[in-house]
């Protein structure tokens, strides 16, 4: 495996050509049985907001920790802003902002003390980089003297983001920042990420929530340590090319099973109030209506459906035989 030349002496010459994050064939095993990452490759460009989307246990945290220089991969090459993760870990540690999956600030220190602490250990001051965090910090300002442990979930995440940003990192690694946070705070958090992206910071953010995919420039769908697909979210969705219908009747449970028994059915999954029915070949909705009526269903409703990122994810899982 070739080692790339380190760029730490030529920092000022880094151009758009140097990706913010490079991952090539990274594998990582825990113990004997758990293959956390299996030949993962991806690239995040400068100033890109990149989503790593997959369920718990897919390997998201492992990958982010490898990039944060906290874990060593067994195989493969990974670099952040041109710095190789094993050899140049000191450069990386000084120049990235990292937010771990769970709240990792000092609960017994106040909002201000936490921020001051992290600014100082990165050799900077709050004042010096205040511009970058101002939008976020103004919301925290009223609670300046409150202990971090007493903040609401959304506020904690905002403070953690401030602490990760205070040294003006070139790359931001965020591990599930919106997990367990209510919808309003989630929305606000994504708005902040968008603004940071506009300031030229490359962001790698992981999330188990599929609906957050559309907020990223590009996403990697990850499941069981392997990448299912990497692309712009719209393209991933449009890659789902089977005819898709939304069906509902008054008996959802029976409906799912009856649809699965239907001859042209490719898959049938509950999707909110409807069942998303994907078909192997185009069929008139009337035929399905008749089939369901024959099974004594009432309140039958059938309409064409737009595929979502979840439909695409499930399809990719099924193709890759990654269902438990």
């Amino acid at each position, binding site marked *: 495996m070739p080692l790339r030349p380190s760029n730490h002496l030529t920092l000022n010459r880094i151009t758009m050509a140097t990706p913010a994050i490079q991952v090539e064939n990274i594998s990582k095993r825990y113990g004997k049985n758990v293959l956390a990452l299996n030949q993962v490759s991806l690239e995040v460009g400068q100033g890109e907001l990149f989503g790593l989307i*997959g*369920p*718990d*246990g*897919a390997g998201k945290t492992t990958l982010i920790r490898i990039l944060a220089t906290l874990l060593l991969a067994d195989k493969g090459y990974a670099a952040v802003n041109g710095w190789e993760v094993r050899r140049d870990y000191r450069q990386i540690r000084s120049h990235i902002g990292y937010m771990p999956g769970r709240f990792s600030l000092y609960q017994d220190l106040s909002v201000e003390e936490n921020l001051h602490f992290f600014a100082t250990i990165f050799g900077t001051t709050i004042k010096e980089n205040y511009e970058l965090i101002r939008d976020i910090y103004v919301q925290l300002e009223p609670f300046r003297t409150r202990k971090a442990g007493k903040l*609401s*979930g959304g506020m904690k995440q905002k403070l953690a983001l401030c602490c990760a940003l205070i040294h003006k990192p070139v790359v931001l690694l965020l591990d599930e920042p919106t*997990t*367990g*946070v*209510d*919808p*309003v*705070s989630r*929305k606000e958090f994504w708005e902040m990420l968008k603004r940071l992206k506009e300031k030229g910071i490359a962001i790698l953010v992981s999330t*188990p*929530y*599929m*609906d957050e995919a559309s907020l990223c420039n590009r996403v990697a769908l990850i*499941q069981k340590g392997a990448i299912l697909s990497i692309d712009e979210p719209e393209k991933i969705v449009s890659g789902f090319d089977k005819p898709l219908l939304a069906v509902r009747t008054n*008996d*959802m*449970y*029976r409906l*799912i099973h009856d649809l699965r028994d239907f001859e042209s059915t490719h898959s049938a*999954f*509950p*999707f*909110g*109030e409807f069942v998303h029915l994907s078909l192997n070949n185009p069929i008139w909705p009337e035929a399905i209506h008749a089939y369901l009526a024959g099974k004594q269903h009432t309140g039958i409703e059938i309409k064409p459906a737009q595929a979502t990122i*979840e439909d695409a*994810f*499930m399809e990719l*899982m*099924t193709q890759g035989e990654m*269902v*438990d």
Partner: protein
Amino acid sequence: MVPAITADKLTKKFGDFTAVNQITFEVKKGEIFGFLGANGAGKTTAMRMLNGLSRPTAGQASVAGFDVYRQTEKIKQHIGYMSQKFSLYEDLTVKENIQFYGGIYGLPGREIRHQVKALIEGLGMQAFAGTLVKSIPLGWKQKLSFSIAIMHRPGIVFLDEPTGGVDPITRRQFWEMIYKAASEGMTVFVTTHYMDEAEYCGRVSIMVDGRIAALDTPRALKEQFGASSMNDVFLQLTRPKS
């Protein structure tokens, strides 16, 4: 038919703070009822009162026909509960967990043996029967927790933030289990702050600052608010003018 759950001006105060403020609603038998709200909106407090774990400050409520003030023991016998932090013991095997909870619910030995077999086969978990719970995948844990929570055939099951963090297929398998239980007449009461989950419920209530701000089917709520998803409905309710 007697409703599974009724709440009439149910209120809980902690000192000056009103966590739950006069909530009134009814859940029909066999219904999947979503109980939504942001963290701190009062969901958990309300659910604890219905579970008989917390005594209301004012108002009336009954669960499975039992009064939440006087018959909390009866209530506990007639409900199932699955919490967000799985109630399974990580250092016991799948089989041992089922046996343990069977014992807790007071099932006779023969019934427990039958349940162990039925449950493991029903979930297709034969390969995991002797595995410690901590080393089975998250999705299996959720399905197992749910099966255990309804093992004693309760009339109502409370699910507290049930399906965070699993892949979309597992999540749907989980909802199919819920649909199945509901189709057999069990009432399912789901609390969650994950609005996506709400779309699967028959009716949902949305709590904001201790009050129920909206209550209807997801479809009706989306129409009412002109929103495309429950997430948008929720955002409009909690941030009305933005």
